[in-house]
């Protein structure tokens, strides 16, 4: 046997013969195969030597990637994702718990129950936690039908403890270096009555109660707003501010797709009146307009134009708490600036965004945002105070309808990267 193997390994002539395997045991077959395989290798020694440096460079990455692959295989084999999905969602799809994330608070879980009183109704419970003890709890009951479905109503109660809110000062010239932080504790109860007279149009009236406490910020790396200001210099910097509020909201939405529109128009107008309960210190009205239109220029190349404005008007002899001033920053889609970067009574901003497909369900985008805050937008709009940012990013649409966004924006404050999963 071994003589036979030896002959095979030393004689090239023998390789050309058809090996007869029938009477040879498995071990011998394996050895014969190994010898023959060495004869059919594609790479020469010179190839191997030349490829060696690259192999060495790639080796550590390959180990990591193979580990990732094993992780993927494990997830696939154990079916963790469908099992988790099954665990979190009822068979009829009416109850579901979903993980959620926002940069303002952190991670959490939302439990939803559909069709409790009417098929469209949605009851949800939300719990979120984040660093610096940030918290949010909410119970909402939406789209409850009234009067033969002509009206619908929403009910909600929410508790927020936002321990690292930013405050840079008031006015268009606030500086990045003046950043402070504060804690905003808030309890909000509200109910809304709405109607959808046309398919694309909704009208809602909200009435609610709003309790606010402003406390020292929890981020010790930057000063606390409460150390630098007081309620006199910064109205609202106090606790137990109880407000009643009434909102009138008119919405129009003709977008072809909600998460990933390629054409259509969307507009929201909101008028709110806030009044302090008990004390007569705070009271104001807010007028807000936000409109965006989408054009499919050619072959799914989409141009989006957005215009937003807000006016905050104190009621006679009343003040506006600083956290209810108009805020220009990341929170209202002004990329490249931190949340609440500029505050004042009024704001105006515009966006021009161009999205184009770069792969299957992946879009790239380039955009520019411009806007400013002012104490009176009609009198004090100055080109010098106009803030501009620009940048680009990617949008990934998942088969489940989620939109994941990565936006990189450049502004006078530097480069800000924002990741959103929606």
């Amino acid at each position, binding site marked *: 046997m071994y003589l036979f193997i030896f002959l095979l390994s030393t004689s090239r002539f023998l390789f*050309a013969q058809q090996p007869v395997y029938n009477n040879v045991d498995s071990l011998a077959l394996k050895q014969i195969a190994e010898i023959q395989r060495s004869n059919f290798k*594609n790479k020469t020694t010179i190839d191997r030597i*030349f490829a060696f440096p690259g*192999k060495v460079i790639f080796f550590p990455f390959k180990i990591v990637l193979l580990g990732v692959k094993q992780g993927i295989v494990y997830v696939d084999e154990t079916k963790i994702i469908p099992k988790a999905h099954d665990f979190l969602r009822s068979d009829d799809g009416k109850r579901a718990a979903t993980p959620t994330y926002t940069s303002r608070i952190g991670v959490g879980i939302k439990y939803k129950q559909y069709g409790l009183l009417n098929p469209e109704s949605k009851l949800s419970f939300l719990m979120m936690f984040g660093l610096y003890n940030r918290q949010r709890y909410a119970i909402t009951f939406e789209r409850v039908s009234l009067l033969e479905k002509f009206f619908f109503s929403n009910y909600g109660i929410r508790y927020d403890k936002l321990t690292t809110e930013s405050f840079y000062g008031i006015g268009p010239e606030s500086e990045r270096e003046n950043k402070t932080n504060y804690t905003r504790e808030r309890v909000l109860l509200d109910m809304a009555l709405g109607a959808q007279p046309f398919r694309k149009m909704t009208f809602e009236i909200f009435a609610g109660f709003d309790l606010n406490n402003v406390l020292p910020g929890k981020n010790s790396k930057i000063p606390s707003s409460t150390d630098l200001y007081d309620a006199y210099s910064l109205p609202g910097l106090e606790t137990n501010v109880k407000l009643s509020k009434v909102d009138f909201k008119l919405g129009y939405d003709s977008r072809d797709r909600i998460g990933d529109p390629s054409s259509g128009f969307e507009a929201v107008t909101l008028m709110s009146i806030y009044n302090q309960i008990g004390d007569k210190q705070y009271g104001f009205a807010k007028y807000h307009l936000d409109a965006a239109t989408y054009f499919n220029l050619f072959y799914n190349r989409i141009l989006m134009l957005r215009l937003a404005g807000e006016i905050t008007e104190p009621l006679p002899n009343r003040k506006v708490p600083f956290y209810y001033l108009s805020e220009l920053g990341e929170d209202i889609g002004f990329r490249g600036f931190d949340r609440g970067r500029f505050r004042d009574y009024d704001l105006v901003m515009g966006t021009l965004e161009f999205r*184009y497909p770069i792969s299957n369900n992946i879009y790239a985008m*380039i955009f520019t945002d411009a806007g400013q805050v002012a104490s009176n937008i009609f009198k004090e709009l100055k080109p010098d105070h106009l803030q501009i940012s620009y940048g680009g990013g990617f949008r990934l649409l998942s088969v489940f309808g989620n939109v994941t966004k990565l936006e990189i924006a450049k502004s006078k404050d530097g480069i800000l990267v924002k990741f959103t999963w929606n």
Partner: protein
Amino acid sequence: MIVFKYKISRFGKIIYFLFLIIISCSQNTIFKVPQTIPDDRNHVPKPASKNFHLYGEYFDRQIILQLDEFFDFSRQYRNLTGTRKESINVDAFGEVANSSWFTNRNSFKKMSGQELIRGPNSGSGPDKSGFWTITRAKVQGVTPGFSIKDNKGDNYLIKFDPQGYPELASGAEVISTKLFYAMGYNTPENYIVYFDPQILKLKDDVTFTDRMGRKRAMNKSDLQEILDGIQKLPNGDIRALASKYLDGVPIGPFQYKGIRKDDYNDLIPHQHRRELRGLWILSAWLNHFDTKDSNSLDMYVTENGKSFVKHFLIDFGATLGSASHGPNYAWRGYQYDIDPGIIFANIFTFGLYIRPWEKFDGVKYPSIGVYNAEPFEPMKYRPLCPNPAFENMTLLDGYWAAKIVMSFTDQQLKVIIGEAQYSDPEAENYLFRVIKERRDIIGEYFFSRVNPLDKFKIETSAKNGPTLVFSDLAVESGLIGQNDSYYKFSCMEYRKDKPNVLDEGQMRSTSISLVKVFQQLSKNSSFKLNNPSESWIIVNIQTQRGKNSAWSKPVKIFLEMSLENNTFKIIGIKRQT
């Protein structure tokens, strides 16, 4: 922290550069008789079964393989210099021998209409005279389906057409099965069946994995759920595809890279097999974009008293214009699912460059889906994710595949398309036209880059003496007219130092008389018969299409001559690319 710093010296760089030159020159030997490839249908013990992991494979091919190849500098250099290594399992004529992977069929000998219709089938499909007992069910995957056992005890996998697209997946699957079989690959027996749902009977202990990943007993409502999602004919019958279980023991898919180590017949790395490299072009023809490992299957079979592993291509529901679950996406076939090159190009052209597939209007025939001849370019065809065998393909592998594609005549294509039993003759005509046009595009591409002279043989007659006869495949397949084709040849005695030209000339016909060569050699005392490699004669043939066009690169035909018998024997062919 320890930091290693090493600067490559000038001497080191020179050595490295020399390696490059050696690598690029290493294939320039004039002719070498390839090693004989042992038959891979010898008796071997059963290899272990392998599981496949769809997402793991996807990650492997899309990320790890791409980076691995990027850092393989010898490979990069060969790609840049066009000196990629040829397939290992080819004979001296560039052909692939019959094996457990491939059997030369239509390109070797034209198959008759009956043979094409029969394809891999051994019978006529599931027996409808009795109940079909459902033994397994599949809810996961692209399309739902179940396995049945018919009255005769045969097992079939039943697959359905997507809602709104009758005949789409079943038609594509039958056509592609028969074409891939006729090309030479091992395929399952796939039948189009029409059946009354009443003949379905659920076996008591059928378990299945539902959409949520739960394994549980299947009940009648589960069956009804599957049937509810299936489009029915006006008479309530269902059209489906019945795929017969393959004979033997399934041992998991084959991989397009490497070997199955415990299969002792598996000697050649799969990425260097011509039939797998060339499958790129064959897949491009039929838009078989889903060429992942898991769409293949190795079966441990016993044939002629020997047990060995036979390699099958399976699941052709996602071919032609079908994506199994619906019509194909327009971008499929033009880019990988994640294609970094295209993504980067798209990013930096800011959407101003419109990919040709973006202009497609949509589905014209629901039974055909999205399958076009414009703008099809075979070498720009991309499967769903990178395929290691395809990425090693050379022009000669492509030429080999093009020969197979061009071997199908219009009539043969019509016969095979007829097997899909389309109810709309217009749709059938459209499909025929696209398959034909894509075939011709492939032929035009490869036959214009590789001199398509083939089927060389020596004919000897008393009147004309020995003659080298060949076929011009471009003319034979009707791509080029015979009147537009010119050939020039030179016959040389093979010598390393100085080639001795024995005869040369130009002609319009596809035959070369070797009489003069014989006479010249008879006079030449230096012609060494004792040393086989030095008694070779090389015939270089070049082709010109039209009077003023450039001559093609030559095909070299290596002849061995016996002065005693006055005969020539073709020992090999080398095509210059």
